[in-house]
């Protein structure tokens, strides 16, 4: 178990990175507490797997350091970092039984058979693998194989962190939920630092205490699921998290708020001066129909079960809002009101006044 620190970490797959685009990871500074559950969330190609491989030691970063409990491990190979990893496609040793698979990491480290046996049985019980210990690993289903992969990490008592690289990709949808709650439960039991890489917001938000949202090699925001939802620090986070994502409309900055399509909108933060492209961001949950406000026209309504997603066109662009079950949806010309406490100004993508506040 360890606290993990990433110190000015940068990585490029090119030998001589020239432009910004050559960096798979731009400057990263992160601090992860011992025993936490963290998720790295971002679209494909955002650098999250690169980051995971740097932490596990499969990649050596071009710049910066990885520290486990303050000790620099950047140059150490994976086996010396005492980490475990669960891969996207289940890795099991086909010819071995489930028991031998779980015992493999311990036997490789020369642990005596009595300890191996008790550890294997303990972990098998935790992972619901007890009934199939004598079975060949080859014949198992994908979720069974992922449990073995995870089990191989859990049997070791020396593990600093368990890393997950999109572990649910090949799992059937109805088992995803089960395995996810199993993971959460295991984390609470073993209290090992777990880092979970995914592009699926549901997986990240349900698993992690803290989520690191990444895009094009940069950390956009680190926060609890609530923080990511309530206070996105960047329009990308607002858009990527939530379903549907945050509305982002171009605006002008005025003294007390913003002006969207010649209409004054009150906002929670203020931009000092409009020295970049200004936009306002508001989640569909906090937009409502009103008697006065931003004029718009209802374009599309889609039923999402307990609520409807309404798409309205105003002069500044498309606005999505949620209307609860039984709520009336006016047709044609409407006015939209934004909750002032939940409407924020973003300059060049980033939340305005961010530095000043922190």
């Amino acid at each position: 178990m360890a606290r993990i620190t990433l110190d000015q970490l940068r990585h490029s797959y090119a030998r001589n990175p020239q432009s910004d685009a050559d960096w798979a990871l731009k400057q990263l500074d992160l601090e992860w507490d011992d025993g936490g559950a963290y998720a790295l969330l971002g679209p494909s190609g955002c650098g999250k797997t690169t980051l995971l491989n740097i932490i596990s030691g499969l990649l050596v970063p071009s710049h910066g350091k990885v520290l486990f409990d303050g000790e620099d491990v950047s140059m150490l190979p994976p086996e010396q970092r005492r980490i475990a990893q669960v891969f996207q496609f289940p890795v099991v040793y086909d010819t071995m039984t489930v028991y031998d698979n779980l015992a493999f990491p311990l036997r490789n480290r020369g642990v005596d058979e009595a300890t191996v046996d008790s550890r294997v049985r303990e972990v098998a019980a935790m992972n619901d693998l007890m009934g199939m210990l004598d079975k060949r690993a080859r014949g198992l289903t994908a979720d069974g194989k992922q449990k073995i992969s995870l089990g191989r990490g859990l049997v070791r008592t020396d593990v600093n962190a368990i890393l997950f690289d999109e572990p649910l990709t090949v799992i059937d949808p109805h088992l995803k939920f089960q395995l996810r709650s199993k993971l959460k439960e295991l984390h609470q039991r073993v209290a090992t630092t777990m880092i979970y890489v995914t592009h699926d917001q549901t997986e990240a938000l349900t698993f992690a205490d803290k989520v690191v949202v990444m895009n094009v090699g940069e950390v956009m925001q680190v926060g609890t699921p609530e923080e990511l939802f309530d206070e996105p620090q960047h329009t990308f986070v607002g858009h990527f998290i939530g379903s549907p994502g945050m509305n982002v409309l171009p605006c002008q900055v005025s003294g007390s708020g913003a002006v969207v399509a010649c209409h004054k909108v009150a906002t929670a933060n203020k931009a000092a001066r409009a020295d970049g492209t200004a936009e306002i961001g508001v989640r569909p949950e906090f937009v409502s129909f009103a008697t006065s406000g931003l004029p718009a026209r209802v374009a599309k309504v889609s039923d999402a079960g307990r609520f409807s997603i309404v798409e309205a066109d105003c002069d500044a662009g498309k606005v999505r809002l949620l209307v609860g079950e039984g709520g009336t949806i006016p047709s044609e010309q409407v006015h939209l009101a934004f909750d002032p406490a939940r409407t924020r100004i973003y300059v060049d993508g980033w939340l305005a006044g961010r530095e000043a506040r922190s």
Partner: protein
Amino acid sequence: MSTKTVNQKAWFLVLPVLVLVAFNAIVPLMTVVNYSVQETFGDNLFFWAGLRWFEEVLRSPRFHDALSRQLIFTFTILAIEIPLGVIIALAMPRKGPWVSVCLVLMAMPLLIPWNVVGAMWNIFGLPELGLMGKALNSLGFDYNYTRQPGDAWFTLILMDVWHWTSLVVLLAYAGLVSIPDAYYQAAKIDGASSWAIFRYIQLPKMKRVLTIAVLLRFMDSFNIYTEPSVLTGGGPGNSTTLLSIDLVKIALGQFDLGPAAAMSLVYFLVILLLSWIFYTVMTRDEES
């Protein structure tokens, strides 16, 4: 289940394949069966001989000797080529510009016509002028493959290893490159030694292709004719007379069609039986 419609017309679609197989396998095989139960003195006159030729072949010490030589030859080259092929495949680079260089080098022996291979080694081993023959003799070895049976066997096996190990290498290599990186990464994290990686990852993943390699090499080497016939012609004496060489001597040298046909069938059944045994043994735990 009961709603399944019975439609026998589909069998007509199999007909073209059946005709093709009939003409290239069944018909020729049946003519051999036909010869094997008859006696002929030429002039297209045939007399019924029953199972006489089969009894004769199975009792003949000449056949037993050829079969023993064949088995020794085949199992020797398998014992050398399979492990050697795997070792070379493991040593080959998996990425980078050297991959294609290695693959081309490996494929080279496979591209040479078989009788040319025989002729090459025939000259290569000549004690007076061949590179290997002369070199060995000047190093103090009394090497002469046309006179000494041991040397003939040595050359024969060396030639086959040179010619066919590449096939095993290429198949094993194909099996190796199909292993996803995650397996190696997981093994690293699990602290596996390189022996454990070989034993539990590489070997199991190569098993299918190695089964094919063993079967191909077994059948090919059991049928081998061209190279030994050009290299030693079965000599010195009968020391390298393998089954196929003996068969050709009986069929075309002595023109004993009946015994030759009976021998062909026995030969064929031996290959079939051994192939089946190999296949069953190598795939036996796949079902469980």
